[in-house]
């Protein structure tokens, strides 16, 4: 699934919130499951979700906004059509992850925490994917890859880099 990169229409947004609340609002400590459900559907967590989610859980808006901003996973802006997360942690560093980081920045034309202006790709750091014996590691659109080098990364990225925008 490739998250849409445009701001969701108000009906999409309302639908996503409603589905997330229906699925999760009854759970004890429901906020994280709700936010995950919204991000799964929309690709990010627009600030517009704060008031309805806060109301549904009987929380203040500040509490909900605070949770969204605390966790690295929740995006406050739409991601690119392809999301690359490169592991920057120690075991991957020991196998050349810093050089891969430089390579990615150069070939993708985007820095960490950024989405390229054409919306094609988002580059994010991640701190350990549990693939430390097959380092360096990354995920591309959620799919884990190991034993990376620049050539393998280029091959893996060739497809998503030229991918056309998904139709809904």
């Amino acid at each position, binding site marked *: 699934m490739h998250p849409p990169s445009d701001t969701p229409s108000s009906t999409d947004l309302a639908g996503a919130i409603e589905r997330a609340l229906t699925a999760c609002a009854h759970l004890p400590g429901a906020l994280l499951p709700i936010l995950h459900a919204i991000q799964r559907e929309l690709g990010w967590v627009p600030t517009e979700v704060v008031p309805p989610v806060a109301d549904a859980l009987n929380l203040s808006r500040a509490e909900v906004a605070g*949770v969204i901003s*605390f966790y690295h996973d929740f995006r406050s802006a739409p991601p690119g059509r392809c999301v690359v997360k490169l592991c920057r942690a*120690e075991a991957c560093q020991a196998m050349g992850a810093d050089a891969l980081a430089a390579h990615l920045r150069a070939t993708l034309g985007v820095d960490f925490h950024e989405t390229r202006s054409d919306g094609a790709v988002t580059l994010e750091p991640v*701190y*350990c994917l*549990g693939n*430390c014996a*097959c380092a360096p590691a990354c995920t591309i659109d959620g799919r884990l890859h*190991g034993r990376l080098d620049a050539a393998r990364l280029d091959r893996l990225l060739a497809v998503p880099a030229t991918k056309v925008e998904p139709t809904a």
Partner: protein
Amino acid sequence: MSATVYVPRDASARSVGADDVAEALAAHAAARGVELRIVRNGSRGMLWLEPLIEVATDAGRIAYGPVGVDDVPSLFAAGFLAGGDHPLRHGATESIPYFAKQQRLTFARVGLIDPVSLADYEAHGGLRGLRAALALEPAQIVEAILASGLRGRGGAAFPTGIKWKTVLDTAADQKYVVCNADEGDSGTFSDRMVMEGDPLVLVEGMIIAGLATGATQGYIYLRSEYPDAAVALDQAIAAARAAGVLGPDVLGSGRRFELEVRIGAGSYVCGEETALLESLEGKRGIVRYRPPVPAVAGLFGKPTALNNVVTLASVPIILDRGAAYYRDFGAGRSRGTLAFQLAGNIARGGLVELAFGVTLRELLYEYGGGSASGRPIRAVQVGGPLGAFVPASDFDLPLDYEAFVAKGAIVGHGGIVVFDDTVDMAKMARYALEFCAIESCGKCTPCRIGSTRGVEVIDRLLAGDRPRLQLAVLRDLCDTMEHASLCALGGMTPYPVRSALEHFPADFGITAAAHGGH
């Protein structure tokens, strides 16, 4: 002809092509009219050989690896389904020295069975610990865990039996078992391998924890970076529920235990137990003041037995084989086994379960085969990002909680990250502080602000800006962080920093002259 081939579903194996190999095997078998049963098992832990496929033969399971899609035609041509010879053949899996010399207690079934088949699980000793526990009083279960010497595998090494006794002795209308599956330390993947390779042992361990403490609801707090583990856990929980292992009437005992997986959201500090509880409650992962400890007032203020994945996965074998069996492995006050994880720049990276007391040297060279690059190993970091760097001169140190603490280091979760002689230890020290700054929950100033100051100080030091002053400031900062932080993120980030400084001063541009000079 019909044959069975095992192709791991382990995330590491998949990350290097296991799915493609499974597909190619199926396609080739179909083209040749061979009836092939492909079992997606966990990994045997020899991760440098992944994808490691195994063929069931009369002579046991024969291993081939690392197998790529391109190797599949030649494997068929070599008659691998009958164990035929091939350049990638390693003989019987369980005779590969790396595997054969291990003491697999907690990981006995990982890689052996179909991870989500309850029948396979039971055929290999599963549920015996739970059945034994159901015949005991809660206090007797706690007593068995105490007598086994089991200590928490998540890092702090606190005796599990003592924690459980506190929960048992605290009266409440509701108690919880929470499994810490946040596994954030770089260089660790043992929790992941249990959850993907034998998730039912975790389910069984949590049910036993519930019986021991009076808890009826369990939560597994799983980091979002482990989607494969989430799938395996969901399948295992569904199988356990369908068979009446989980639910209102555990194995017909009249005892109740429910279990749910919750997904984290990419925060390292949420591995800290009280931050984890906050997160489970739907809040920001801010560390709580103690007391009260979670065993007295944990999730939603209720008594909570909170343990690491490997801790809980080690419980069934203790109940099954007896406390003495488990306790007889180990060294000093570190009883039983630990699943060491060899990671980073190591030729044979993977999981090695052994009794405590093995030395770093044995792990790094006998098992690990030295560095992956072929260059000398210069340092290892044991116990994750808060663990000290251990120089090669200390590689005879036995892996034992107390022996490491005596050296200012930690065993932690058993992850060992290997660096060769190209590593820049000043950069690693800088990274430790940077990581602390990124992941700090923000509650204490020394951790929140001090870590960022530390990065700046190292930058000035490396730029040659008044090195003696910077060194003094850095040491001061480390002391403040250690003594004035609420949790180990701020409190132990000084460990990697100080150990790098102490053992590798030249990397910081500090010469013997500069130590006293400038």
